[in-house]
């Protein structure tokens, strides 16, 4: 069935290194994508979003890349810090008229090693 999923459930990187978290989606009608960060015991925190008319969007230390050809989304975090340790979720809005929900992937746990 249709899904938003992640390639890896866990990812460990050394502090200061760059990290890349991947996400695949299957619905070509999806046109709005979001990355959330969730720390233990807290609600998801918005990181960055991208619409389908863009291939790349940059924020502070984060970059989201969208490849519509292969239906792939990635989150790049530069110069990782201990505070980046969290679970990262991608989510999509499928662009259906009146559809108002986000569909979330299962999440990737990012661990930053000192």
């Amino acid at each position: 069935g249709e899904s938003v999923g992640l390639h890896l459930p866990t990812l460990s990187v050394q502090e200061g290194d760059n990290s890349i978290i991947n996400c695949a989606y299957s619905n070509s009608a999806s046109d709005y994508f979001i990355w959330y960060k969730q720390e233990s015991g807290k609600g998801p925190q918005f990181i960055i979003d991208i619409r389908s008319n863009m291939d790349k969007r940059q924020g502070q230390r984060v970059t989201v890349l969208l490849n519509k050809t292969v239906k792939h989304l990635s989150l790049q975090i530069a110069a990782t810090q201990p505070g980046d340790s969290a679970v990262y979720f991608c989510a999509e809005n499928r662009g259906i008229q009146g559809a108002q929900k986000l569909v979330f992937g299962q999440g990737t746990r990012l661990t930053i090693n000192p």
Partner: protein
Amino acid sequence: GAGVSQSPSNKVTEKGKDVELRCDPISGHTALYWYRQSLGQGLEFLIYFQGNSAPDKSGLPSDRFSAERTGGSVSTLTIQRTQQEDSAVYLCASSLRTARETQYFGPGTRLLVL
């Protein structure tokens, strides 16, 4: 300004009891969403409100689950005759108008049904 708040932060109840979970969205946000997150899982959409109306209830898992929103602001999620499988974190989010804008999440209510 204040973010999304939820209460209680934790709730322990006995199987068969009813529970009410409360969400206070960001002031001025007309769209409100409830999600459920089971341990180690992604977020599962439950219901969406636009103002006081709920045009999408498709995610409610059974008729034991209901929600209402009053005054275009506070929302209450009610679970009747709780079951152990209802144990999860219940997250509320709000956005300015639609799901194609940033959804801001509250900290969640952790529900444990014994």
